[in-house]
């Protein structure tokens, strides 16, 4: 007679089951709202799919890819997105680091300054863009402020009218909105530097500047790398300011970033195939940045 003995459930198996149970909602959420749309976009990119059509979409191979890559509008959008990313990177990085160091060095009122800097990030992007659009009116605050500062009364800096200035304007709005967010990341990064290291440097006679340049900055490198990648990733997804400014009379071509082009292709032109191709190309770039982010700062825990 043969005895069949089932192996006892190990503690690890039990833990694994619980692990899966805890992870399942996240996996389900990710599959529904991220993975499925990505797979759907890949499928759509090979089909001639019009948004309102009731006919089944036709498989057209790589035709949509060829159309997008040959389109001058697409390359203009790549230029607009790249210009925007590079244009906002330096001011956001420098200002948020500067404010981060200043806030971290204060013992009193730290929370107040953090809150004040962070508050624009909480505002809706549409509200932010609307408020700035009023300020960029030729008779608005932007001209008055700059003319007062430079002693050039009556000069219209054409914030929303000139092809270059309208790009600068979108960057100003974005920097104003996002500096507080990245500043908080720097404050957190500085807070994680071991106090013992700082104390040791003080005992060794290091002054404030030496502590900043020889201890804080080197130990802040992982945070800096993470913030750099995040600035690029998030600024590639900018949309509301460009959309609203172009609705309010600003020339659309200079600020027709990829996200705005995707929106117009899908909603105005109703061509989901082309919009999907552009989305996937943008996704590929974002994926690259995400990989760089993981390499640079891990999951963010080291920050």
């Amino acid at each position, binding site marked *: 007679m043969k005895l069949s003995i089932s192996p006892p459930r190990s503690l690890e198996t039990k833990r694994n089951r619980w692990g899966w149970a805890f992870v399942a909602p996240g996996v389900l959420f990710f599959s529904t709202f991220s993975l499925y749309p990505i797979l759907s976009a890949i499928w759509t990119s090979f089909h001639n799919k019009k948004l309102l059509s009731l006919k089944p979409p036709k498989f057209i191979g790589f035709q949509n890819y060829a159309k997008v890559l040959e389109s001058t509008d697409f390359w203009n959008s790549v230029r607009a997105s790249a210009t925007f990313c590079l244009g906002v990177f330096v001011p956001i990085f420098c200002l948020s680091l500067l404010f981060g160091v200043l806030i971290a060095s204060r013992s009193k009122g730290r929370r107040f300054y953090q809150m004040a800097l962070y508050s624009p990030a909480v505002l809706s992007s549409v509200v932010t863009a609307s408020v700035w659009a009023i300020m960029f009116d030729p008779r608005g605050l932007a001209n008055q402020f700059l003319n007062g500062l430079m002693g050039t*009364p009556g000069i219209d800096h054409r914030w929303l009218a000139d092809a270059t200035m309208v790009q600068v304007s979108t960057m100003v709005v974005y920097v104003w909105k996002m500096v507080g967010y990245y500043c908080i990341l720097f404050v957190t990064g500085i807070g994680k530097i071991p106090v013992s290291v700082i104390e040791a440097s003080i005992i060794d006679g290091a002054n404030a500047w030496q502590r900043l340049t020889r201890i804080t900055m080197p130990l802040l490198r992982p945070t800096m790398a993470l913030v750099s990648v995040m600035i690029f990733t998030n600024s590639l997804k900018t949309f509301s300011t460009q959309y609203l400014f172009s609705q309010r009379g600003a020339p659309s071509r200079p600020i027709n970033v990829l996200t705005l082009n995707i929106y117009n292709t899908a909603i105005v032109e109703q061509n989901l195939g082309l919009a999907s191709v552009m989305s996937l190309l943008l996704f590929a770039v974002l994926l690259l940045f995400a990989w760089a982010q993981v390499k640079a700062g891990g999951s963010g825990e080291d920050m």
Partner: protein
Amino acid sequence: MKKAIVSLVLLALTASLAVAQAPVVAAAKGKNVEIKLWTHDDANRGPLEKQFIAEFMAANPTVKITYSSYPSGKILETLTTAFAANQGPDIFNVASGSAIPFLDNGRVAPGNYKAVGVKNAAELEASYQPGSFEAVKREGDIYGMPLELTNMCLYVNKKMFAEAGLDAEKDYPRTWEDVMALSEKIVKRNGQIITRRGFDFRYDAYPNTFVPMVEQLGGQLVSKDGKTAILGDEAWLKVLQYVKDFGPAGKNLGSPTYTAARTEFDKNTGLVAMSFSGLYQEARMKASNPAFYNSKDWMVVPFPQWKNSKKSVPANYSGHYYMVNAQSAKLEQEVAWTLLNYMLDHGEQYLEKVAIVQPTQKLDQSAFYKSMPYSAVFSKDFAAAKIVYVGKGSSRLNTCLKEAFESVMLAGAEPKAALDKLRKDAQAVLDSED
């Protein structure tokens, strides 16, 4: 006391009459019918339409109507995505220029003439002004009912004319050359910044106001067969040059980045002397600045023409149409058409409370319409006008027009270069739609 009782009785009678006026859909009796109606936000129209819906539901107790409104800038996006997921509402409204994708893709139900109370499409058309259904007519059938159709004329501030040493009654602009010359006389600047505009364009209305300028000179946006874009180079070049001269890089008389001219006109704070708008602007002016509305300081004149116009062309009109979802069940469609007919039968109330003009013969002939200041000016222009281009690719063509006019006005492009690009882009739009 007696007076109060009589008033109450009259009020009750009126209320009961209102309920009684709403039509009963015999086919819906005893059946639960749910209708979803989506429209764009309008603080004045919402309460009025909700009142009509309440009356309709009182007359048809088994019918439930859900009224939802969305921001006007978002309604098209909301509708398009809902229809793409086959979850569109039973009743919806779209702008005339955006109707075509819904029609071409079979998303809209043809008119239920019985429910609308007419024998056929011809009878329905006859009760409206000619051309009212051009955007929603396919092979003899009508696919939508106009919520409003608007043509634009020129509002003139007489006081600002007088301040510039002009007599508006005599000196108002008849031609585009007049518009430019008067703007130069009235404009004031602080350095490069305009502090008072003589006139400024309506930059959200390229097909309504810029295209007619071209048409007056013999040019066309799209050929009659719908296959060729941008005809009549001479006309286009002249208009593009005019806009370039008008803009910041030319005589610096106006620009799309200033606050909309019609908004500043209503305020009467001396910022804009002339602006384009529809008859509805009168009601907005009345609400925002009743003192100015009631003064004799403003007037409305016809859409200007060129001195050497080849033909007289007023501003093109555009508007919104209520439509019924073709995917709704037949009974829902019948209820939807009956409801639409009931709502839109109150043209005078829409005009009085919402300030929108439904192009019905009944409203055009009504004493109320005629009593509105300068309604005759709008009517005369409307009678000679046509609808904006509503053929294939109309939304994308608007984007091409916007880019072309902005490039000469703001980016300093030469009219010839802008025209070449416009032709290439517009032709690509038409070709891709085939």
